[in-house]
């Protein structure tokens, strides 16, 4: 059976074993070692800030938190942004500062003079970056009358502010809605969340999300290396002409190879899922653990990551080269990881390749994005199959001498020729 032969071929690849080791290391160092003890209920009688925080989703809280942060940044003319995940302190020109001031006035009703007055009463301190010293301001908390502005208009304003700042700021609507809606949990909140772990998640659901969060990071990039190694093996072994001259259809060959890649690369993930189930059954001995969630959620969550990475690796290797596939996949993965900035929980959008939910709790936040999550995973599943179909088409073109691949780099690369 061709599928079994392809699987065997993959098992003989050094890159595949390196992939297995990296997946195992990620699992052992991040997830397995963190989940060696069971979760215990919160102790009563502590002050609200001692428990965790939770996103309230309350519009008034979001508006007030956002504006208070914005006013301090505006006075200091220093806005911290993370475009593509990298720290950047943005200092605006006067014209842009005026726009920010106008927005603050629109939201708060505070005019230029009033804002100047508040600034005069601010706490001032100096921050050095090693070369320059900057004066920064910390204003007293300002109460905002949120009846003056609709929430939709507020979203428009902060979206525009984020654009003025060049993106990646705390004022991007999704970031603001998360960062500035946090409120301290009460004991009751903390207890409710703890109870959800047992009642709604059946224990395993929460652990499955955490497991998928960690594994999703490596499965968004590592499979591309194995896919490239397998896709380029024919050419590297000078076997491509022998393969091209066989009677097997390109679609059957490419899809069989893809199926073998996915199967082989999912085996270590499945092994780790089984190890996680055993670990859960041990640490929650006597509790009712919904084992099916630990099996189902990671498969639905992680398989699309693996499929996309492998499909893109195969397609770009056939069309261009392995190097191009690595560069493109790394860019997709990196932007997906960094786009969420510091939001590690509930960072799930329609087209985020690497979905994040780096906690056992906060189930409500995850469920808030449930529809996006289902759309996201289905989209990447279908997109992977479409990419494999295109790979098969490119393979067919190559074996018939109608296309020889496009080399971007190297001796005959078009980029080098242009240079």
């Amino acid at each position, binding site marked *: *059976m*061709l599928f079994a*032969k392809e699987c065997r*071929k993959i098992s*003989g690849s050094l890159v595949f074993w390196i992939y297995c080791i990296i997946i195992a290391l990620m699992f052992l160092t991040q997830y397995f070692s963190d989940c060696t003890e069971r979760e215990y209920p919160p102790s009563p009688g502590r002050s609200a800030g001692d428990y965790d925080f939770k996103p309230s989703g309350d519009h008034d809280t979001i508006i007030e938190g956002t504006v208070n942060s914005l006013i301090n940044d505006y006075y200091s003319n220093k806005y911290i942004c993370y475009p593509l995940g990298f720290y950047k302190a943005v200092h605006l020109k006067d014209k842009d500062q005026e726009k920010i001031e106008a927005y603050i006035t629109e939201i708060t009703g505070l005019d230029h003079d009033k804002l100047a007055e508040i600034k005069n009463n601010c706490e001032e301190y100096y921050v050095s970056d090693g070369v320059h010293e900057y004066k920064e301001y910390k204003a007293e908390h300002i109460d905002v009358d949120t009846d003056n502005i609709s929430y939709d208009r507020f979203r428009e304003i902060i979206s525009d502010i984020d654009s003025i700042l060049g993106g990646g700021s705390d004022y991007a609507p999704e970031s603001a809605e998360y960062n500035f809606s946090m409120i301290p949990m009460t004991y009751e909140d903390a207890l409710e969340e703890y109870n959800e772990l047992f009642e709604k998640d059946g224990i395993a659901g929460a652990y499955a999300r955490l497991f998928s969060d960690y594994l999703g990071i490596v499965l968004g990039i590592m499979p591309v290396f194995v896919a490239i190694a397998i896709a380029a*093996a024919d050419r590297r*072994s*000078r*076997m491509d*002409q*022998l*393969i*091209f*001259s*066989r*009677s*097997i*259809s390109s679609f059957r*060959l490419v899809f069989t190879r893809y199926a073998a890649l996915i199967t082989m690369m999912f085996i270590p993930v499945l092994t780790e899922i089984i190890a996680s189930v055993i670990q859960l059954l041990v640490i929650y001995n006597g509790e009712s653990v919904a084992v099916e969630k630990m099996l189902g959620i990671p498969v639905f969550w992680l398989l699309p990551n693996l499929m996309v990475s492998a499909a893109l690796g195969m397609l770009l290797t056939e069309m261009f080269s392995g190097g191009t596939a690595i560069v493109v996949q790394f860019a997709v993965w990196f932007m997906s990881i960094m786009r969420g900035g510091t939001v590690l929980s509930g960072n799930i959008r329609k087209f985020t390749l690497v979905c994040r939910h780096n906690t056992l709790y906060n189930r409500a936040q995850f469920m808030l994005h449930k529809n996006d999550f289902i759309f996201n995973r289905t989209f990447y599943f279908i997109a992977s199959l479409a990419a494999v179909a295109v790979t098969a088409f490119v393979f067919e073109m190559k*074996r*018939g*001498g*109608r296309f020889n691949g496009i080399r971007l780099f190297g001796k005959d690369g078009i980029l080098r020729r242009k240079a």
Partner: protein
Amino acid sequence: MSFLFGGDNMNNCIEIKNVNKFYGKKQALFDIDLTIEQGMFGLLGRNGAGKTTLMKTLAALHQKKSGEITVCGLPIEKAKDIRAITGYLPQEFSMYPNMKTDEALDYLGALSGVPANERKKKVTALLRRVNLIDHRHKKVKELSGGMKRRLGIAQALIHDPKVLIVDEPTAGLDPEERIRFRNLLCEVAEDRIVILSTHIVGDIEATCEQIAIMDEGKVLWRGTVSSLLENARGHIYTANVEKRFLPQIKREFIVTGMIAQSDYTTVRIVSDAEPDLPNVVLTEPDLEGAYMYCLHSSGCDISGGEE
């Protein structure tokens, strides 16, 4: 399958009519016309003559620009059907280095659609036929160049093709391996079409009766080896010359051989007219001389020999 191939007369021949092929703007094949029947067929030509391009076109690995090709009655456009009846051994090839010899053969058999129950028997039989049965468990990377070539023939025969296309199969082989390989080709040509492309005249001489000579994408000659020899009759001479005249003779004539004697050298010359040299004798043409005469009479620049 006979309904696929038409009548019996069509079953065992390849017909190539006015075939042209371009690489971008550069024309690689010019109006190729050939009929190739069962048995060994030699395609002789210098490097860059277009042999590999023609071979790949016949194996449905390249597309022609115009003209018609039918392989055993099948138009070349039916690539999948053509691949099912064609075995191809490319000029440069290898296999997954870490696969065992029998595994590699089995894998390629699977890609050719040979059923699993037949494959095992065929792999054993073919490895025995190409004298690799004792090396079946060796990894491909451990095989010598000659062994790899024999494995190459075995892979091309795994699906029992009606047509076998072998491109420069003996390049780089030592004389013993070369002879073994030629004999193997002759054996397999008993019941199928075998097209052997080479620039080594000795390979053709030892194996083929029907040949075509190509140069710069054109067919210069097609026919039997004996007719090629006959064509050169009266144009091959030998002469005994002093060694000091050799550079001048090489400049003025097409020299196909030299045998150094004690105080002179016997040179073999291709010429339209009798050369004005001492002791010049008209001699029986050999295939190498006949091939050189064919190139010369077709207007090819052959000063300096092969590129």
